[in-house]
């Protein structure tokens, strides 16, 4: 279940059963290749659900050449080698939306790039209304359930493109 408050109000949804890490990464890459300036991707899922794997694929789709590693320690990693800047945020250590403001989440969201927020449920109130929300659930040793929900025009357009690309 998506814990987004308006889960039912999503404009578009897509549910995929990922067979393994490679597939999760490939989905990220497919999405990354289609992202545009100002897109915000919110990731929700427990430890080991594949959030960072998905983001690594997404970075590849943006043609980013650096290693995309965990931003947990410094909260935000920035990558400029790709088609668009990528801001990779980890909100695990951010208590709430007010703290998110304090560390400048807004600056990333209103920037010229793509923003990916892990542990997004912690800072939900600080995120824009038009967000592509991805919930990852543990299903088995390798399997993960990926549920995409698009909450606005921009994110719905991106999800449509992803659906089209993977023939879903």
């Amino acid at each position, binding site marked *: 279940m998506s814990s987004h408050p308006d889960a039912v109000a999503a404009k578009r949804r897509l549910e995929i059963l990922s067979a393994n890490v490679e597939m999760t990464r490939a989905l990220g890459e497919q999405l990354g290749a289609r992202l545009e300036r100002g897109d915000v991707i919110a990731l929700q899922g427990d430890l*080991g659900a594949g959030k960072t794997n998905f983001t690594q694929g997404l970075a590849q789709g943006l043609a980013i050449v650096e290693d995309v590693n965990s931003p*947990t*320690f410094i909260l935000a990693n920035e990558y400029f080698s790709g088609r668009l800047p990528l801001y990779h945020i980890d909100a695990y250590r951010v208590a709430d939306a007010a703290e998110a403001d304090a*560390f400048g989440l807004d600056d990333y969201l209103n920037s010229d790039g793509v923003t990916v927020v892990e542990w997004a449920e912690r800072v939900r109130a600080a995120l824009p209304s038009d967000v592509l929300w991805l919930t990852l659930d543990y299903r088995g040793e390798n399997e993960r359930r990926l549920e995409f929900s698009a909450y606005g025009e921009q994110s719905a357009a991106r999800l449509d493109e992803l659906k089209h690309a993977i023939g879903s």
Partner: protein
Amino acid sequence: MSPLILGIETSCDETAAAVIQDGCRILSNVVASQADLHARYGGVYPELASREHMLKIIPVIDTALRDAQVSWRDLSALAVTHGPGLAGSLLVGVNAAKGIALGQNLPLLGMNHLEGHIYANWLDAGLPYVAQTEDVFPLVALIASGGHSSLVLMRGHGEYTELGHTIDDAAGEAFDKIARLLGLGYPGGPAIQRAAEAGDAAAFKLPRAQTQRPYDFSFSGLKTAVLNLTKKLDARALLVNDIAASAQAAIVDMLVEKTQRAAETCAARMVLLAGGVAANQRLRERMRARVACPVLYPPPKLCVDNAAMIASAATWHYRARAHSGWDLDVIPNLKLTLAVMSG
């Protein structure tokens, strides 16, 4: 005259100040830890951390000077960590340092936190500061902490080449996350080491990830393997200890294997361990058993974040007259290669 340097460190959750003479003699080393505070929340919370730094920074600096029995006039320079780390936390230290340096007319040295970790090995009973340069270089340093994991080749003081780094989680972060999966609390490193003492390291066969580049690290697959184990097994204490021991063995094996390979390829005369993970007993033992050249590591209290290591590293910058300007800024993702001295 031997340089007397005040170091300030606030990159994460420790507010620290220290006075170091000649790069190796600790006259004072004050660390106000927020560990208790953050343990309650299961990790470091950035805004909480900067507020604590603000409250503690001036008392900590005062105590460092008093413990060292020196006054502002005795100091040669002031050194402060300006990256990598949490922006808000770094800012408290850098602003305090700038204000003091300006007011007391002292040279300001902006330091790289990772360089500091390496130089913890030069403090006190560690490598002697005086000369001996030819005896220790080239050396390979393994920096492993909650935020960093990299292998660095040093050809001389201030000459760093990064050989490899983690492609996902830092080693200390892997300890933290695995401890979380096992319900062992925070910080994960000491918690896992404790649990592992009562466990069997051969109980579970956990993956040692291979990476494309020879000196990189990857710990994310190990984390997932532990996750799968916890889903499969019930959480009896005995199993938790066995999993902790097996996971610790896997992390240590990966760190030792890459370091040993780097030391051999680079014909290192010495291997230095640095960062919080360098306090891990198994890592120290296995590294010494596997690496042919001498392996050095700081005492546990100098492995974790402190300001003595910052002042020690700063001594070389001071000698090279590599002072920072008043526009010194915090750089949360500062790389070690940028710290190369001009002098």
